[in-house]
């Protein structure tokens, strides 16, 4: 084991650098390499990461989830939403909501999981993998209405997924911490709604203050420091008040994108420096995988895969039908949305820290296992959907 946390970070960065380069040769997103690296370095295998760094994992996950939520908040820029069109909005919302409901109900009813835990699984099921879908579309030079709609959907559906997750996690933490009684359930739900609204207010206040004094910035360095300052303040205030980091940061990003004409420059400055944070985050997610619980989680993983697959297919079908899209869109859009990656793992790691019990470990195990499977077969299935839609020729 490396005892020094800084040396551990050095090892993570250099291994992440080579791992990312290696998997990109096979058109696999870099985050897959980072998670695999984390599994290799974990205490259950080579046990290389310093304990001090592992104990800081929760801090990293809050910071990175805050960054992800803030950046995804920009997807709610109204100009973009208007531009992508009705069918994309309809499909993306339904293909996020239906898997959430189906996975939640399925795992709660058939596997007897606590409703709160099933709710978190459901929320994780709603996210997709834009990088994987874009790679397939680019590699096979896919063209046409189906491809354009698919790319539009994956560009915005993780934002819906993150809102659903923020809402579900607030509910889950209230439900798991509450008294198991009829009145208790209503009290918990009331608390969850209060948390959600308070989290949104934290994000909104951050934007108001951000816009009020942003004229003081007069260099690119200032802009980055200013963006980090407000992001960390939002994350810190949400944690201090026991609110949702995710919803606070997402509302901060979304309201900033819609109220500040220069907002794109703040998002850009953050994107220029975010990669090292993601490497640490996903490596630590891999380190967090617990081999002891894998056997128990196999059944849940299989059910998660089946329910999520059906949910995506059915959700996209409903969305495409409601938007008046053609039969091809209704039939094949759902299977094209199966890849799952970064946002799902990010949500699972946050769930692990927030639920802080055996359920949290199980959620991370199931999410990593199913992500690996969806990463392996998802791009192939997306390709099949594009062939069926007649927008690429070969299989």
């Amino acid at each position, binding site marked *: 084991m490396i005892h020094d946390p800084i040396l551990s970070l050095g090892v993570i960065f250099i291994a992440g650098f080579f791992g990312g380069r290696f998997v990109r040769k096979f058109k696999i*997103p870099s985050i897959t390499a980072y998670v695999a690296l984390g599994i290799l370095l974990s205490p259950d295998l080579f046990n290389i990461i310093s304990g001090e760094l592992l104990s800081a994992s929760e801090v990293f996950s809050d910071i990175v989830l805050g960054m*992800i939520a803030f950046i995804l908040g920009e997807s709610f820029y109204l100009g973009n939403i208007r531009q*992508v069109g009705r069918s994309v909005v309809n499909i993306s919302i339904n293909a996020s909501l239906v898997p959430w409901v189906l996975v939640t109900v399925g795992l709660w009813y058939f596997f007897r999981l606590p409703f709160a835990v099933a709710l978190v699984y459901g929320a994780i099921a709603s996210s997709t993998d834009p990088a994987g879908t874009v790679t397939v579309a680019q590699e096979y*030079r896919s063209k046409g209405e189906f491809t354009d709609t698919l790319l539009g959907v994956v560009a915005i559906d993780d934002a819906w997924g993150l809102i659903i997750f923020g809402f579900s996690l607030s509910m889950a933490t209230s439900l798991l911490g509450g008294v198991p009684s009829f009145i208790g359930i209503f009290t918990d739900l009331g608390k969850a709604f209060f948390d959600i609204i308070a989290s949104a207010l934290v994000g909104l206040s951050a934007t108001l203050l951000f816009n009020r004094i942003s004229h003081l910035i007069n260099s*690119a360095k200032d*802009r980055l420091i200013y963006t980090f300052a407000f992001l960390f303040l939002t994350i810190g205030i949400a944690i201090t008040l026991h609110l949702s980091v995710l919803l606070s940061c997402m509302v901060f990003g979304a309201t900033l994108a819609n109220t500040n004409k220069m907002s794109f420059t703040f998002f850009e400055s953050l994107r220029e420096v975010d990669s090292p944070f*993601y490497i640490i985050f996903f490596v630590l997610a891999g380190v967090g995988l617990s081999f002891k619980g894998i056997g128990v989680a196999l059944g849940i993983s299989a059910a998660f895969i089946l329910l999520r697959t059906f949910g995506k297919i059915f959700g996209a079908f409903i969305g495409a039908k409601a938007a008046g899209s053609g039969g091809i869109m209704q039939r094949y859009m759902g299977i094209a949305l199966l890849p799952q990656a970064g946002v799902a793992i990010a949500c699972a790691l946050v769930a692990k820290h927030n639920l802080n019990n055996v359920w949290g470990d199980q959620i991370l195990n199931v999410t990593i296992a199913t992500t690996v499977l969806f990463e392996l077969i998802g791009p192939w299935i997306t390709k099949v959907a594009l062939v069926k839609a007649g927008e690429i020729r070969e299989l």
Partner: protein
Amino acid sequence: MVNVKEVMNTSVIKVKRSTSLRALLDIFKQFHTHPLIPVVDDQDILIGMVYPENLLDILRPQQAKLFRSLPFMEMDQDVFDLDVVPSMGDLIIVDDIMDKHFVVAKETQTIEQAYKHMRMHQKERLAVVDSGGKILGIVGIFDIIWRMFKEKGIA
């Protein structure tokens, strides 16, 4: 302090949103370094900006802009592997690829303010507009440096 209007270049090459990709490429070819081309409407109001890197968005302009705002995206469009056909030169227009979010200098700014503005946004040139958004010229870092050297008696 010197006003930005005094140092800006007023002979600006502009395009309309309906300008074809082929015509745009011809215009870009006239520049040697760091070109930016303002896009204006019929009243000369600045509505967008085209940079050379926007040319790589020609295959999926709308999605390219959306994906740029997502975390963990590795969008390296390979210029040597673009799947383009000659007809795209006329079918794709400036409106498909222009940046609708852009940074400008106001005509009332001093050159010191414009210089800070450029440093802050890491741009080497900015379009100068009046209070109504009408384009008046382009100011570059070199214009400002040259003016300062001139004031010191060097240029």
